[in-house]
């Protein structure tokens, strides 16, 4: 499969993310950038969604459990035709429907509002369970953060999804290795991540979260695992702030908004890598 479509979408997600957080004076650009590539692969080539019929019953469900990176999802949806790209300019502005943490209220394509960590994944699991009860064939995709894996409800869900053999449930972990205050391994260590999920009975796929070819293959494997009785986790090794050199692997950019010269420099770097 060609990577062109997903590479272009990832580029646009990053551009919009930078612009939206700048305009809104909001945080989490590092977290938006780290997930931009696999989010783009999902929306460009993997998930079955229809902007003309956002509530199409047979659609795949996509939930962002790490709701703080909502700007990335809004950008992906707008660029996929769910609502006008122009509306992204209202992100975090007074009276907007696009809140910093992702909102489903009046926003086509967003299945659920999240932002309190550890809640989107079990919600998505409930949707996957409903699909099983209804003998429906669609899949439920959920994106969680690595810091979010500190939440007990993530591991409660990991146990439950395995118990109920939810092989229509595909969780992607944005494993960017940096959480709110410090590196993950210096906060609440998660490695060996693969072993943890494998021991919980999940089908584990570990992938370079910025390699579009590898990501396409990973999601092909994930889709093919439906019918094997195991929930699927794609552990995407990513770089926080990926795409702008001075943001990469720096905890500062969990919170900082790019302004002035920093904004211009970031924009220039992104544009230099236009696919």
């Amino acid at each position, binding site marked *: 499969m060609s990577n062109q479509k997903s590479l272009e979408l990832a580029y646009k997600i990053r551009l919009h993310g930078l612009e939206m957080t700048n305009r809104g004076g909001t945080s989490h650009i590092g977290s938006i950038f780290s997930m931009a590539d696999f989010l783009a692969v999902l929306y460009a080539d993997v998930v079955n969604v229809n902007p003309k019929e956002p509530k199409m019953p047979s659609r795949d469900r996509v939930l962002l459990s790490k709701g703080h990176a909502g700007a990335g999802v809004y950008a992906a949806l707008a660029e996929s035709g769910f609502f006008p790209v122009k509306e992204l300019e209202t992100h975090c502005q007074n009276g907007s429907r696009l809140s910093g943490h992702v909102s489903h209220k009046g926003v086509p394509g967003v*299945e659920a509002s999240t932002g309190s960590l550890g809640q989107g994944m*079990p*919600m*998505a*699991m409930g949707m996957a369970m*409903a699909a099983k009860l209804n003998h429906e064939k669609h899949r439920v995709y959920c994106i969680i953060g690595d810091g979010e894996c500190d939440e007990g*409800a993530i591991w409660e*869900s990991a146990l*439950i999804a395995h118990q109920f053999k939810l092989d229509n449930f595909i969780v992607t972990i944005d494993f960017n290795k940096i959480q709110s205050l410090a590196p993950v391994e210096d906060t609440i260590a998660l490695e060996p991540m693969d072993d943890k999920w494998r021991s919980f009975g999940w089908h584990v796929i570990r992938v370079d979260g910025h390699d579009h070819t590898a990501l396409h293959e990973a999601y092909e494997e994930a889709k093919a695992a439906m019918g094997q009785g195991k929930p699927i986790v794609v552990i995407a090794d990513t770089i926080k702030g990926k795409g702008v050199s001075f943001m990469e692997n720096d905890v500062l950019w969990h919170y900082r908004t790019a302004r002035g010269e920093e904004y211009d420099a970031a924009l220039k770097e992104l544009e230099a890598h236009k696919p």
Partner: protein
Amino acid sequence: MRDTFVRCLEAYAKEHQELVLVTGDLGFGVLRNYIAQFPERFINAGISEQAMMSMAAGLALEGKTVVVYSIGNFPTLRCLEQIRNCCAYHNANVKIVCVGAGFVYGTLGMTHHATEDMSALRMLPGVRVYAPADALETEAVMPLFLSEPGVAYLRIGRGGEPHCHEAGEIRGYQTGKALEQFSGTDAYLLTAGGILPSAIEAAKLLKAEGKCVGVASFPTIKPLDEEYLASICKKVSTLFTVEEHTIIGGFGGAVCECVSGFKENRARVVRLGLNDTYCAIVGNQAYLEKQFGLDGPGIADKVRRVLSGVE
């Protein structure tokens, strides 16, 4: 109440294929019939209340009516934020059932006393709160609890509660309505939940002394029957609320909020219940009710003191 709940649930499930029962690994014996009849619509989420409640929201957003069953504080306080964010904000059809209201599990200790749940749940926008007093009230509220859209909370006892109503007495119950047991001219005792028999006993004791104290049960505390409260405020100047629960923000709090907003005929509201305290005493439900002045004589004593001007 518990058996009535399950019987009504089974009847509803027969007619409504969308109903799914989720338990947090509780209901041994109680849910047996339901499971036998509807095995494909029974999910034991294990002892995972937080994930369970979010999962229930996810199921509900896909068209299910999800009844979440547990005891004590597990389906409420343990996962309050999940109820707020995942269920209520999404207006998901999640129906939360707590068995063990108040001191029902008295001897098990304070972790198992459900004495702040009504306050916690009624503060959440869009959540209806039911606290029936006996099996007949439970039967009356069940179809409404299950069928009205959005999140609802039902707190019930374990079983064996005395009947406060005659069979068939409650007809056409509507959410948000109070049920008057008898009218009064000196004061009213208003109750939510299984404490109603104590209030009735108190009213009888007071009647023997020449005091005419009315009694009304509120099977729904949210929405609250404001019309009924306005009507009794025209008749008496003192209302007593009685609940096996904290007096802060629960049923008594709800009555205060309502009555204080009346333009005229604002009665004094005296709240009986747990006054900003946990119960560290070991004992069964009746024993603990007595310790907190919530038995018939205890309630009557409080009414006497207030009406005579001592308090």
